[in-house]
């Protein structure tokens, strides 16, 4: 069997979490992984390290990472790491990992995180358990990742017994963010120098556009309005915005010109595959439900308790969407205030 670049005997008792930044803060998924990593490290008495790549204004990011439980931060600074490119980041992460030899390397399953982890695993010749829904630590520091396959129908437990680092990616939101642990004293920042060559970086960002190009087939949340919302798509838009999603519609509101035809969901419209579809005031005609059958979770709100939409929903509410949606917006807004002030 082919071996990884370093084996279990050389690996250090450290769990390393890749810290992905978003402007001046760390991505939430990185903090979630630090929280989980702390828990796993404590089980076996290991250290928890964060890997931070970048060029400037790294200090506030380190503070965040320490707060959620990192013992040390490995920092590599280089002008080519200012923004993410898969070439520079893979190369830098590889150099740091080869320098520190962690036993475990965790990464958020974001688009960039997946790009990085996929390349890194090959570079290191090690195993990668992608999109874990849970992580457990077994005796001897063996990481077991739980993954789902076959459209979520099968759960598999996967480990990498001999190769190091044991790599795993985890989707955002899988692990809760635990409150900061203040009693930790060890807070070490280690700067690791990396060599990067401009010629390596061959990806060119041609254009980056924010706030446009909304594509309801790709949206993680779709709030769908039917006849029952009486054209109040403004309300649905507020809810969708709050959830980072898009607004869709059944046929009748499209017919009456309340919303563009491009947003019609169903057999003769678009088929979407969001994490959540919130269906408001739609009875649930078959031709429509075909358009939301791939949604992970369906929430339905309708005044008619007999409406067939409830048969294809995970959570149903009998009531007027025009009352429930504003209340939901309120509930979500209030909890946001609670989080930031607390």
């Amino acid at each position, binding site marked *: 069997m082919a071996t990884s670049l370093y084996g279990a005997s050389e690996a250090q008792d450290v769990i390393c979490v890749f810290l992905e930044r978003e402007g001046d803060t760390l991505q939430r998924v990185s903090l979630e992984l630090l929280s989980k990593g702390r828990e796993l490290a404590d089980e076996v008495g290991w250290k928890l390290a964060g890997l931070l790549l970048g060029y400037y204004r790294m200090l506030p990011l380190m503070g965040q990472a320490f707060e959620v439980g990192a013992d040390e931060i490995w920092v590599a600074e280089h002008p080519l790491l200012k923004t993410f490119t898969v070439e520079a980041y893979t190369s830098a992460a590889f150099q740091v990992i080869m320098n520190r030899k962690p036993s475990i390397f965790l990464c958020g399953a974001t688009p960039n995180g997946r790009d990085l982890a996929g390349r890194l695993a090959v570079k290191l010749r090690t195993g990668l358990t992608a999109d874990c829904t849970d992580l457990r630590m077994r005796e001897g520091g063996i990481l077991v990742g739980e993954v789902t396959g076959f459209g979520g129908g099968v759960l598999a437990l996967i480990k990498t017994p001999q190769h190091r680092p044991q790599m795993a990616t985890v989707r955002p939101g899988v692990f809760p963010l635990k409150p900061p642990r203040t009693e930790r004293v060890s807070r070490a920042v280690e700067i690791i120098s990396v060599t990067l060559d401009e010629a390596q970086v061959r990806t060119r960002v041609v254009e980056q556009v924010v706030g446009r190009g909304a594509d309801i087939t790709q949206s993680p949340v779709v709030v769908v309005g039917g006849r029952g919302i009486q054209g109040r798509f403004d309300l649905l838009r507020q809810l969708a915005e709050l959830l980072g999603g898009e607004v869709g519609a059944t046929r009748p509101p499209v017919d009456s010109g309340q919303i563009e035809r491009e947003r019609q969901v169903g057999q003769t419209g678009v088929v979407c595959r969001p994490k959540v579809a919130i269906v408001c005031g739609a009875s649930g005609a078959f031709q429509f439900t075909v358009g939301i*059958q791939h949604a992970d979770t369906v929430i339905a709100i309708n005044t008619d308790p007999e409406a067939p939409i409830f048969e*294809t929903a995970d959570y149903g509410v009998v009531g007027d969407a025009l009352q429930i949606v504003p209340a939901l917006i309120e509930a979500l807004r209030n909890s946001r205030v609670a989080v930031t002030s607390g």
Partner: protein
Amino acid sequence: MTQVEHLTVDDARWDTLFERTRGAVALCYQCGVCTALCPWGQVREGKPLSVRSLLRRAQLGVPDDHEDIWLCTACAQCESLCPRGVPVAEVFQSLRGMAWEERRVPKGLPSVLWSIYWNNNPWSQPPSHRSRWAKGLEVPRFDPSEHEVLYYVGCTAAYDRRAQKVARALVKLFQAAGVRFGTLGDEEPCCGDAAKSLGYTPYFEEIVQNAAQVFAQNGVRRLVATSPHCFDTFRNYAPRYQADFEAEHYTQFLDRCLSEGRLRFSREVPLRVTFHDPCFLGRRNDEYEAPRRILDAIPGLERVEMARSRQDALCCGGGGGRMWMETSAGERFANLRVQDALATGVQVLVTACPFCIACFEESVKAVGAPNLRVMDVAELAAMAIE
């Protein structure tokens, strides 16, 4: 100044079309009855579907990337009075077939064919869920030594929650009549109507041949279909592929059960209803009376006719593959048909086709007629048994 449209005549195209319609397209002598009768004229003022000119262009071999070729609902209104007997819908299907070959097909239609290919139904539903409609009912797997007839459920009745109620009503009726029947469960093949209507004929032929084979392997000699579309396919197209079984629409089968005294209606159903003839039962297969006889046998039920009925019935708009295409709000035949029904003052608009039900239920809401119910003959009949 007169605008002159420059047309390119393509002989090869004409030859292809001639061959595919087995010469029928040449019969048209441009009288225009078809255009006058076409229901699109009733919903598209000023820009009706000119069947006549499309046929003429076809005869000249003019390449037609016209969107209009996708409008035909195959309702056969025009065919019924065509003095030359042109199978207009088939000509449209051939034109669509050419559009497939040239990859000029409306968005969404390739997905319908893929769904039949991978899922054995045009509705993108899992094939392993096909028999779920029968949950809680006693529906045995068809066995030729035990069963007199195969109940062919069809894709729409198997998956569409509304149409499933029709299938369940039928099971109740079969049981009441002591019919020894079974289904093919998840193995039931798609009839291919969608592929035929959308003009992808070679694939349709494959589907029908496969279905015929499945029926033969299972020893099926007679089948009863929920949908007039499946029935039409099995009755009129399957025989071209050496199929050896007889197909009936369920209204015909129930009608016989009534006349043979196997089925009796004992409960009053005090409703005023009107029957809408599905195109693929009526004009396409000449069955106008069986559904009416069933309705008339229901005690307490009062049946009236709409102004246009039987041969003159207006199409619901769901045939010809239009179930898988969008029709803009002002152009739905079903809205007009619901008005026809409202004019009779009935409580229930009855039909015998899952496509008609889907179209009418949507239109009942669209025209704001909440008191008009849309039901299937089977559902009313099931109300009439103990």
